[in-house]
């Protein structure tokens, strides 16, 4: 074993000398033809070329697949490191951290109640089309999120449980679902942008809302129109984050069509992963506050009609607007008349 290692070391030393130094620093030993070649950059030496081109080495090929002219791209190793380590940390910390924060918040703050109690009278908050846009986005986002998380973490979490064949089959279906559901998801985001953008322009009320802690911390309910400051933040995160996921996703789905360089494709893939994982973490908070986190909130997107007292507490200015316009409030059968309570 010893002599072999020694011989190997000799070979490696000879190689490094022969490769690195012969072309770079011993021009005297070059044959006449090569000696006439301009000194920089020498096409002959990989290291010099790498330094000159700052990365990949591009050449010419005679086959139709022109992207194969990229001879070597060492940054593939960076993509490897990003995918195996960086992305998993970002996703794990963001999603795991958000779940921990939500559990803690629930334990400390508990469910946000309607302080005046439920009135039994409702007011229409979202019509059928608004709810369609929301649930179109939401349902596809959940499937896209699960199949996407499967790509990011399935190898570590699911593969050992399912075995290679079952996991590959599930991932194959997941990929198909992920590709095709991207279209309705994008449509949902666009619809929400169009129907809600007028209610989501930031204004002075939002500053006051955030200054008062949004009613989550403490017990005051700062006034708000149809969407409060927090909801506006979610709206813009969904529109911009969802838009970014859609754009990078379509770039990935049509490889080298919109973006023609290797760096561009790698960047799109990395951005898609990071933004999507952060969006999943953000939407977990949205799901929490729209369901178990707040009494009366789910009805807004469920039946579309919210309890009047809930609306007065969370969206006082919006209720005044609707009431003065004389639309919206409806009295369910058996409920006491308006003003009786």
């Amino acid at each position: 074993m010893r002599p072999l290692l020694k011989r190997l070391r000799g070979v490696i030393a000879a190689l490094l000398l022969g490769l690195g130094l012969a072309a770079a620093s011993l021009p005297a030993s070059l044959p006449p033809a090569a000696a006439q070649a301009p000194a920089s950059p020498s096409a002959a030496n990989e290291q010099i070329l790498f330094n000159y081109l700052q990365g990949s080495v591009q050449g010419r090929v005679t086959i139709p697949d022109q992207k194969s002219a990229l001879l070597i791209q060492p940054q593939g190793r960076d993509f490897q490191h990003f995918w195996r380590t960086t992305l998993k940390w970002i996703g794990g910390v963001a999603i795991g951290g958000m779940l921990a924060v939500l559990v803690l918040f629930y334990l400390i703050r508990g469910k946000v109640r309607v302080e005046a109690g439920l009135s039994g009278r409702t007011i229409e908050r979202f019509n059928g089309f608004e709810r369609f846009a929301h649930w179109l986005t939401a349902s596809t986002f959940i499937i896209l999120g699960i199949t996407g998380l499967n790509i990011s973490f399935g190898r570590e979490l699911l593969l050992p449980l399912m075995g290679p064949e079952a996991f590959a089959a599930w991932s194959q279906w997941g990929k198909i679902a992920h590709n095709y559901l991207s279209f309705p998801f994008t449509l949902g985001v666009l619809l929400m942008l169009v129907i809600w953008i007028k209610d989501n322009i930031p204004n002075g009320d939002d500053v006051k809302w955030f200054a008062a802690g949004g009613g989550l911390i403490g017990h005051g309910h700062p006034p708000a129109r149809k969407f409060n400051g927090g909801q506006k933040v979610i709206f813009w995160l969904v529109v911009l984050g969802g838009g970014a996921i859609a754009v990078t996703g379509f770039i990935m789905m049509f490889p080298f069509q919109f973006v023609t360089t290797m760096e561009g494709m790698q960047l799109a893939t990395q951005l898609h992963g990071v933004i999507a994982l952060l969006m999943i973490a953000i939407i977990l908070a949205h799901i929490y506050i729209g369901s178990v986190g707040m009494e009366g909130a789910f009805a807004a997107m469920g039946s579309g009609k919210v309890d009047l007292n809930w609306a007065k507490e969370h969206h006082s200015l919006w209720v005044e607007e609707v009431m003065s316009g004389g639309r919206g409030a409806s009295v369910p059968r058996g409920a006491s008349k308006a003003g009786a309570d």
Partner: protein
Amino acid sequence: MARMKFLCDSDRCIECNACVTACKNENEVPWGINRRRVVTINDGKPGERSISMACMHCTDAPCAAVCPVDCFYTTADGVVLHSKDLCIGCGYCFYACPFGAPQYPRLGNFGTRGKMDKCTFCAGGPEADNTPAEFAKYGANRLAEGKLPICAEMCSTKALLAGDGDIIAQIYAERVTRRGYGSGAWGWRTAYKEMTTG
């Protein structure tokens, strides 16, 4: 056990593309896919070099690291192979590969990719050696027959070397010593990181 590697002596490569053709013929590579290709650097200028490139069968292979379904494996000879039964055609290995080795037959709409195909070092795939099923998916398994990859075996100038890394490195080192120049073992630094620290 041998550690199989490719080495292209770019001072000998004459860009005849016979390695590309032989590979396609031997392995009956799908239409539109080139497991091996010849890239010419500084074409038409002084110092022009051609390099025959395929999968380098990397140490700590990036393709295997990023594969979401873990379909790659490394044989006892250091050859990086994959299972087309498990591959879902996501395309990540192509972004991670420093050498542009993984390729995908185009299927259906959009850029939908089929099962990835790449150089197998003429070592087939996970199926039993030299069965019709193995040939249909991965091509020839010359290693199981005691032969080296066809591309290197038929290279007329012996620019392309395939075999145990130590042996082909020694052959190359002897050439460099004898002729007094050499442009390096293309891709070795990226593929087999240990070479740089040696």
